[in-house]
């Protein structure tokens, strides 16, 4: 059981933030170099740029959340009955 608790420290929030963060960087760069034809396709919105920025903001919030409320592993040992 002790093993399991340690392994449980794997935090899905970091994984999500990493994937969305990479997407955010890629899309933002695409958005910066976007051709006008692509912007016109999306009804005049540079959706790659705005979408990318949105994802970077999301990533920042998730990282902040992970920092402020890290997973508390040992404290809850007594809470899990069995």
């Amino acid at each position, binding site marked *: 059981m002790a093993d*399991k608790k340690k392994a449980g420290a794997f935090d899905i929030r970091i994984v999500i933030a990493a994937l969305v963060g990479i997407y955010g960087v890629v899309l933002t760069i695409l958005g910066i170099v976007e051709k006008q034809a692509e912007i016109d396709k999306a009804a005049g919105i540079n959706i790659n740029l705005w979408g990318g920025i949105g994802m970077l903001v999301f990533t920042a919030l998730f990282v902040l959340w992970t920092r402020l409320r890290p997973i508390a592993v040992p404290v809850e040992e007594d809470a899990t009955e069995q």
Partner: protein
Amino acid sequence: MLPQQSILRLDATAIDYIIIALYFVFVLGIGYLARRAVSSSLDFFLSGRSLPAWVTGLAFISANLGAIEIMGMSANGAQYGIPTVHYFWIGAVPAMLFLGVVMMPFYYGSKVRSVPEFMLRRFGKPAHLVNAVSFALAQVLIAGVNLFLLATIVNVLLGWPIWVSVIVAAAIVLSYITLGGLSAAIYNEVLQFFVIVAALLPLTLVGLHKVGGWQGLVDKVSASPGGSEQMSAWPGNALSGFHNSFLSVIGIVFGLGFVLSFGYWTTNFTEVQRALASKNMSAARRTPIIGSFPKMFIPFIVIIPGIIAAVIVPELAQFKANGTGEVDYNDALLLLMRDLLPNGMLGLAITGLLASFMAGMAANLSSFNTVMSYDIIERYLIKDRPDEFYLRTGRIVTVAGTLVAIGTAAIASGYSNLMDYLQQLFSFFNAPLFATFILGMFWKRMTATAGWIGLVSGTATAILVFILSENGVINLPGQGASFVGAGAAFVVDIVISVVVSLVTTPKRDTELVGLVYSLTPKEQRTEVAVAGDGGWYRKPVLLAGISLALTIVLNIIFA
């Protein structure tokens, strides 16, 4: 379903493929990371009952956010408009809240490892066997349907041969589930949820901008063949199939809202399993309640794009006007992606769709292997082995289930109608299950015999109504037939169960503690205060009340 060499072929470039590939690297990485947490069968099948509520809550939603949900609901949006929201606000949220507030204490509190196991404890072997076998069969076949839909979409969008996509997708899902078990499935479902939102939200916003905002959409739909009633949720005549508005409202509230949705959300182990994986009673109860919040907003990124597609994509507008052309409503989302998204965002949108299809299949497989291992193999076939044996069995069963799903996908590619029927048939198991569960949880007199006879006769009733309506004996349009079928199954199940209970011997009270409301001490069905469960926003009943109030507000706004 879709033309093979199609006008839907998306113009995906290298950057789109990089975005798609990146996602799969993460999916497999999660499987690998989750593997380290698997040391017993309980870890594999129920994540060691250790996950926080927000994780299981999002997984609860994602497990249901598969191919049928995303493509089907945007198609309904294109065809019927705003009334499609009833599938979410009436057909899901109330049942999810009921599961969290009323039923979860018995599921989680009794420490059962699956829904069929609850059946076993409450009603004994015959009911358990009926439930376990029908559930396992349904899951593995539906996994095949999900797999086939995924392959069809990949074929249309990217031009890959169907069998290549079937095998690649099956191999990916298989590897992360056999590695990490339910944790891998659940963590991936959470990741999928965010990817799906990241894919569909920009599409919706660009679409809304294109039609001139909300008012522009209202004007365009009102001027289209759909007319202005497609922009208001009630009374939803076209959706329910009833001409009379009063009957339509009754049909939606009771048929969809009560019988169909309560049956699905409260007894389907694929959903309940996510809650059983959470770390304590409070988190288990909050799982479906937390899930209800994203659930009520999903229509905005699934249905609205469908509605937009029907007014701005010329091919679809033509189809809606006179039923001709190469496309149909199922293509709504794909057409909108094709017309609006530049490369980059397009890759992300394709990733979102693939993510959603794999989520559905992974959810089916991860609940299938649990029921197969715990409820069928351990209970009836190979008993009393050490735990490692069942852990290994779970992995082997997952492989076998995937192979069967590939076979099902192959059958589905030949007989698409057959698959439609099968899926409808399986949906009929839910209404009688709900009747049996709810009666069994609140009436201690209900006997074991009544449990399985009620279940069998209720299911038989649903199948009978289905056959009659297929043959035109009962003639009901739209969703009418399935409302009536589920309703009849529910009533027959209750009546037969009560009658049989009165002439058979009930179980002793001591055997029913934790399973029946009146025999379960209050402490056992409410959560013990645990460190980390403080704060008003962690109180299940209060959260459920907020969710219900929000849903009512949404209904009023879009009435």
